[in-house]
């Protein structure tokens, strides 16, 4: 039987989405911080493509790189506000829009996991 890849993919996307939520929340919290540059996380698609071999930890003292946390980069100043006099590049409207995106995707993800789970239960019950 083919292993079901869907749950792995879905949990990866959920992890990526919650990291993005953290980054966007950081941008919103720092909306009035002088010199703060808006950050974003690399798109999910390229995260998937670059998911090659990772370092293995065979001993608790080993260091491994965290799964996705080093993908946070500064974004270019946007047209919304550009760079403010204080050196801040966070556009509040854009960050709120990103949050909306994260929420939609996360809910789609959770809904899909739920319905897959129900389908699997259905096969088990019969």
């Amino acid at each position: 039987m083919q292993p079901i890849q869907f749950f792995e993919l879905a949990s990866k996307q959920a992890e990526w989405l919650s990291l993005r939520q953290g980054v966007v929340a950081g941008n919103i919290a720092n909306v009035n911080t002088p010199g703060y540059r808006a950050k974003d996380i690399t798109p999910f698609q390229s995260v998937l493509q670059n998911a090659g071999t990772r370092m293995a930890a065979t001993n608790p003292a080993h260091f491994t790189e965290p799964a996705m946390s080093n993908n946070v980069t500064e974004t270019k100043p946007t047209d919304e506000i550009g760079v403010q006099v204080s050196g801040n590049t966070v556009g509040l409207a854009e960050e709120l829009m990103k949050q909306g995106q994260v929420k939609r995707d996360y809910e789609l993800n959770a809904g899909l996991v739920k319905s897959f789970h129900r389908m699997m239960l259905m096969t088990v019950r019969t």
Partner: protein
Amino acid sequence: MDPLVASLKVSASGLEAQSTRIRIVSENLANARSTGDTPGADPYRRKTITFVSELDRASGVSLVEIERLGVDEGDFSAEFDPGNPAADEKGMVKLPNVNVLVEMADMREANRSYDANLQSIRQSRDLISATIDLLRTSQ
């Protein structure tokens, strides 16, 4: 630390920073006409607040902290009011360097940022409950 819990923490730090800012604005507004009490004394000086972004090593997100509370070194305005205890020999009283319009604009901006942080807390909470809902058996 779970990224969603970390984002709650970030937004909470934003709420705290913005509410301190609103406190400073209220202090300035309340003292907009506070003069000194001896002849020629300096009146209330406008307070300022600056934020700084600080990396939280436990969760890897950038929290916002209050860098420092300073004072505005701008010039005082003067008004002729010989009856005031702070009036000098010419009858002039120094008034605080608080511009009410600037303070109101600052307060409005702080309000907007506070709202945005609240919205982001609400959203993180929604995402967490969407995850927990996966455990609820829907028959």
